[in-house]
Each structure stands twice: as C-alpha cells, then as structure tokens.
C-alpha cells in the first residue's frame, strides 16, 4: 500500500502541494488529475523520494520514503514526466544498466531485460540507440525501465503524453494487464484515460486535494447526471416543454432544433433524481412522437471544470 499523509511542499513563498493525504491499495489504479501546475508532478516526486517534502510523509509498502528511502525505492517503478532516457545508449544497454543498478546480475539480468523488452513491444528496436527512436518508442523504453524489476508499486507521470491514439491504447493496455497485483498511481489530464483505466480518481487543484472518488462517483456529481434527452419527430405538442419544466423534480429544460425534429433536454433538480418516468408519461399523454430517449450519465469534464475552477479568485496566483 502507498500511504501518503499530509504531504506538503513549499517553494520559497509558494505552496506547491498543500496537506495532501490519500492511500492506494494493491489492485487499484489511481488517476491523479488536476490542471497544469496544480502540483501533480511535485507530489509524485515526493512519493518517489526525488524531492524531500517540507512536511508530511509517504510510506511505500511499510517503508518511509524519507527515513528508509533506499528500501522504499526498490519497490517503486517510476516513470518521470517526459520519460527521460540516456539517448546515446541502445535499448538493450539502457535496460541492462537499469537492471544492474537494481541489483540484477548474470542470467537474471538478461531475463529481466528480455522480459521487459517483450512486454513493452521493443523487440524490433533492441539494438538501436535510443536517440534515434520516435517519441512513442522512447516513452515505452522508459516504461520498460520502470517495470523491469516487477515492482509492487508503479508511479507514472503522464504515461501517455505525446503518444498517438494507437500507442495510447497500447500503454493503457499494458497498465491494465499489470494492475491486478500492483498498486498504480498515474497522473494525466486526459479525461478519457481516467475512464479507460482508473478505478479511482483524485483531483488536486492549487496544491490541495479537492476530490477522491471513483470515476462513476465523480460523474454522479455532474449536473447533467440523470438528465433526460428526448428526440421528438415532427412538431412538439403545444405547451409540453413548459409542462415538463413545471415538474417538481425538474430544474430547467432546453429545446433545440434537430434535423429529425426537436430535441428536448430536462435537467433534474439534483444530480441523479429519476425524472424520466414522469417526463415519458407526460409526453405520451400529449401524443408526442418520441423517436429516442436516453438518460445522460454526466460528464467528467464538467465535474472537473466545476471542481477546479470554483475558486477562480485565487487561481490567478497559481501561475506565479
């Protein structure tokens, strides 16, 4: 388990990470989200022992990163932001070097390197020097570096940054395949990615933790969660929209033109209130020709925006 408690980092006058606490269990993939500059990378650097925290601790598998950093770092695989690698080395040479530093020798070392190369689909470029590879390959080389010792804890800073959609898919696939017996923290600002791989999400804004939930749980906070969207062909019966708007559980409604007729959207007073049955019976009583109806699930980007821009007043100081 990775246990982060009250982690804080101050740079001169600016507090980059402010009293952040959370825990990640084996089998979980924790998505770490936040606007650029919110403190994601700083937090990860403290968890991996690269930056000493101003206060607070991170305990990795029972080892405190500050007190017993060496044993803690042995259990971590870390993919730093922008996937730094030694460009002049070959893929084989680089992974061999990492394996050696991690204490692998002889046939164990060769096996660790060849396994990592296979898992990250690097076989065809094994003997090329890393500087000649494309960005996607470089990212995978650095990824191979962090899983080479089969660590129980993976910390990945924007693992799919700068990759094309196919490569993103491959990297996510690799993360999912390994997640059963590992605890994974990955930072991203791609909302699809959270949906695709994460079992839990935390959002930090301006250094503070502002949400800790499952992707579904977050989506339920969206004001469009439970909204009913109905497509009516030909004309909308006179006064139907107003009548729906007067329902006790409906807060507001929208009517828009659609090539096939009219689209009516009604929003519940509270996210998740079941308003569909009332709307449907109302509409069929009035003889509306309903083509399709669906209940919206809510959107992560809405929730993300709502959470991270609510205190617009002090967000202006963030870019200092």
């Amino acid at each position, binding site marked *: 388990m990775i246990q982060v408690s009250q982690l804080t980092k101050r*740079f001169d006058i600016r507090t980059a990470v402010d009293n952040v606490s959370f825990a990640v269990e084996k089998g979980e993939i924790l998505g770490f989200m936040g606007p650029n500059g919110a403190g994601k*990378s700083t937090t990860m*650097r403290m968890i*991996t*022992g*690269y*930056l*000493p925290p101003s206060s607070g601790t991170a305990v990795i598998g029972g080892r405190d990163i500050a007190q017993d950093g*060496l*044993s803690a*770092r*042995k259990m*971590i695989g*870390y993919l*730093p*932001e*922008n996937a*730094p*690698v*030694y*460009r*002049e*080395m070959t893929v084989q*040479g680089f992974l061999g*070097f*990492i394996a*050696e*530093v*991690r*204490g692998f*020798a002889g046939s164990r070392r060769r096996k660790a390197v060849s396994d990592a190369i296979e898992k990250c689909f690097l076989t065809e470029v094994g003997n090329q020097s890393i500087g000649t590879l494309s960005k996607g390959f470089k990212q995978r080389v*650095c990824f191979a*570096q962090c899983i080479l010792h089969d660590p129980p804890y993976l910390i990945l800073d924007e693992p799919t940054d700068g990759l094309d959609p196919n490569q993103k898919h491959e990297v996510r696939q690799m993360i999912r395949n390994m997640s059963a017996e590992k605890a994974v923290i990955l930072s991203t600002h791609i909302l699809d990615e959270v949906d695709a791989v994460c079992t839990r999400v935390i959002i930090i804004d301006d250094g503070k933790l502002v949400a800790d939930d499952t992707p579904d749980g977050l989506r339920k906070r969206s004001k469009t969660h439970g909204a009913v969207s109905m497509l009516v062909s030909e004309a909308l019966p006179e006064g139907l929209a107003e009548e729906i708007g007067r329902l006790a559980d409906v807060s507001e409604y929208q009517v828009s033109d659609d090539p096939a007729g009219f689209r009516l959207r009604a929003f519940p007073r509270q996210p998740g209130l079941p308003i569909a049955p009332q709307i449907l019976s109302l509409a069929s009583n009035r003889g509306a020709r309903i083509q399709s109806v669906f209940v919206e699930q809510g959107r992560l980007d809405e929730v993300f925006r709502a959470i991270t821009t609510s205190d617009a007043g002090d967000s202006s100081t963030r870019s200092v």
Partner: protein
Amino acid sequence: MRIQESSNTVRALLKRELAGYFTSPVAYVFIVIFLMLIGFFTFYISRLFEAGQADLRGFFEWHPWVFLFLIPAAAMRLWADERRLGTMELVLTLPVTTAEAILAKFFAAWIFLGICLALTFPTVATVSYLGDPDMGAVVCGYVGSFLMAGAFLSIGSMTSSMTRSQVISFILSVVICLFFILAGYPPVTEAVSGWAPSWLVGFISRLGFLSHFASIKRGVLDLRDIVYFLSVMIFMLSANGVILENRRTA
C-alpha cells in the same frame, strides 16, 4: 551486505558513465586536444630536447595550466547535462544514494583523465630512450598530476551540480580552479592581506595547487601534499552532495 550492494551500484553507474565518454566524440576530441597541448608546451615552450636534461620537469610543469581549461570542460557535463535532460530524476529515484551517484560519476571521470595521462607515455619513452631519467621521479610526477587532476575534477563536478547550463558550470569552475592555482602567488595574498586577518591570509596562501605540486614534480611525494589534494576532493564532493540534496527542484 550493504557495502557489497553499494559497490555494485557504484560499479554499474561508473561503467555506464565511462562508456558514455567513448560512445560520444567528446572523449576523442578531449584526448587529442589534451595530448596536442601538452606536447606543444613541453617541446616548443619548455624545449625539452634542447634543455639537455633527462627529466620530465618541463613536461609536468604545464599540467596545472592545461588542466585549468580542459578539466572544467570535461566535468561540466557531469550533472548539468543530467539535470537538463531529466535523467537525474531517473537515476536518483533508483535505489541509489546521492553519495553513490556522486562517487560513480567522479571516479568515471577521474579514470578517463587517468587514461589521458597514460597516453602521454611516448614522452616518457622518448626521454628514457635518449637518456636515463630517474624513473621514481617520473612515477611520482604522474601520481601528483593524477591527484591534482582529481582535485580540479572535484571542483568541476561541484560547479556542474549547481546549474543546468554547462557554460555557467565551465566558467565558474575555471574561476575557482584559477583561484586555487594562484592562491600562493604574492599578488593574490597581497590583495587579501589588506583586510583579512593574518590567519586567513596564511590559510589562503597555503591553498595553492602550485606549491603542493611543485615538490611533487621534483620527485618528492610528501604525505602532506597527498592529504592536501585528497581533502580538496573530499570537501568539493561533499559540497556537491549538499548542493544536489538542496537543489532537487524542477
């Protein structure tokens, strides 16, 4: 157990570092320039042949001055480059202590400088073919020169950890090395003696590389000179460690 582990780590880092010199053109350019400069000074300025003496004082005499510019150039990439490329974050989040990383880098660079020094062997061969030099003095000169190279290198390693710009590292390092070379010279001690307490003036005047190298190049390997160079290295590398621990920011 821990020591075993530690030495394995240092060896792995050192091997990569040393191989890094020879997979880039840096090493070859450096070696060629070093040998040409040393050769030029030895044979055209000191006129080793015309001096008619079977010793290598005219050869060792120039080492501090060649080192002054070339060693900061060799050392400037040690940390600045890793910081710039982000690989420092990669290495220092492996199960590696700061001390291990510093020592590995330092020893790799020192071994590289040792190889450069060893490649000056034709000069020794020439002199011993022409005459009968005191081989003890020659060995002693090489040991002293190697120690002094280590001291220069530790300064370069320290300045390299202060910045991500290799140019800044180079300039800082040259200035500090120049200070150490000139520290024993009267103009420097006079500039300081006006305001500093006398113990400080005495301290600075004994800090000079040249006075410590002077007896070595004559063939006298004094324990005090060895201790001096080693303590410069230990001091600079410790400072290097403190800087790294404190400057681990973006």
